[in-house]
């Protein structure tokens, strides 16, 4: 049975029992219970009953904590925690790894191995709907194995305080049907079609390519998040802003207004029209320009 139902029903039953004992205690005339009877009551209700309940809960819950088995052919996703975003690399053994950021896609019903680490400070990778949290420690690779059993969108967060924008370091996990996932991964391996234009020129002219990669352009820097498929993500700036043209433009001009402590410099002198052009160009790759 579902953990939540068991806990809710259990808590209700115990609360009712406590109330019943309370009512009985108030109604019973004084002196009815002698010392031995009272001690016996404390022993059974206060010690033996909770011990049995807790033991049963422990025995029931422990098997669920067993780490999932995995094999060498399973999909591997390397995740690196950075202040304050997630660097991703998908490896399924069928070609070069696919680099992405801030949004994880997993196939339903298949085992997925997350190899997590960090580059700056300790972060922690946590998708409450899919598995326990796993610390991301610089210089060390920790492994978390999950398996989504139904399609849907799960929220993931950083679960270890990592700096000013720790609370703004989140991501979505999209559990997709395996065939849809395979199609997505194959297309992510390629170079998306993107309209050339003023946005591309502005992106180069403002030096954005010094930190960001946009596949299919000369920009291949790895300091900031890969922006190749920015347009398909459900959020902007690692779960912080809505995926709109306006918020993208605003973020470009002053990232640390939305994410205090972010490494990206402010471009306050950049006209809003230019920022919007860059945003439009970045978001155009998924065919939903101007969303």
């Amino acid at each position, binding site marked *: 049975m579902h953990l939540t139902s068991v806990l809710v029903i259990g808590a209700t039953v115990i609360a009712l029992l406590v109330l019943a004992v309370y009512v009985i205690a108030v109604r019973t005339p004084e002196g009815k219970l002698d010392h031995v009877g009272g001690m016996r009551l404390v022993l059974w209700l206060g010690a033996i009953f909770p011990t049995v309940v807790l*033991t049963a809960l*422990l*025995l029931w819950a422990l098997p669920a904590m*067993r780490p999932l088995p995995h094999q060498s052919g399973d999909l591997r996703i390397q995740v690196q925690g950075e202040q304050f975003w997630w660097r991703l690399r998908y490896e399924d053994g069928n070609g070069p790894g696919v680099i992405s950021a801030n949004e994880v896609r997993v196939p339903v019903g298949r085992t997925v191995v997350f190899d997590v680490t960090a580059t700056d400070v300790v972060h922690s990778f946590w998708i409450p709907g899919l598995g326990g949290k796993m610390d991301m420690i610089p210089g060390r690779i920790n492994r978390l194995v999950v398996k989504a059993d139904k399609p849907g969108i799960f929220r993931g967060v950083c679960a270890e305080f990592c700096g000013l924008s720790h609370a703004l370091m989140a991501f979505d996990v999209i559990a997709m049907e395996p065939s849809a996932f395979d199609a997505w991964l194959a297309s992510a391996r390629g170079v998306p079609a993107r309209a050339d234009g003023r946005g591309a020129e502005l992106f180069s002219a403002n030096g954005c390519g010094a930190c960001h990669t946009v596949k299919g352009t000369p920009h291949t820097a790895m300091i900031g998040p890969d922006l190749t498929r920015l347009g398909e993500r459900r959020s902007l700036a690692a779960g912080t802003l809505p995926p709109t043209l306006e918020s993208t433009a605003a973020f470009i001009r002053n990232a640390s207004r939305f994410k205090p402590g972010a490494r990206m410099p402010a471009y306050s002198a950049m006209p809003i029209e230019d920022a919007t052009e860059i945003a439009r160009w970045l978001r155009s790759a998924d065919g939903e320009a101007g969303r």
Partner: protein
Amino acid sequence: MNRDPLKWHERLRVSLWTLIVPPAVWAGHFLFSYLWASISCAKVGSFARFPTLFVAGTVVALAIILVSGWIAWKQQRMTGDPPPHESGTQIDRLRFIAKSTLLLAGLSFVAVLFSALPVAFLSDCR
């Protein structure tokens, strides 16, 4: 009052030191569990490397707690005045500390079991 000669466990001196035997064993077993798991994982690289050692350590811990609890059980039943045992007499002192030791032994027994149980279910070092 005509009493039988005291048995060996009734002749044992009861003190705050005997009181903390069960929780101290619990603490020792707790430390032992962590050391066992981390040394197996770090040095040998696999989880249940010496399960016999762990089972033996757990059995020893449970046995010490059981003996301590049994002695306390016997001592707190020694003849004396009726409850509550709260006077400053020798027998009240004995029965009070023995009863506390017994309760602590019960708690420690369950606690040692609870900290040993995960080993039966977990299978690797992750």
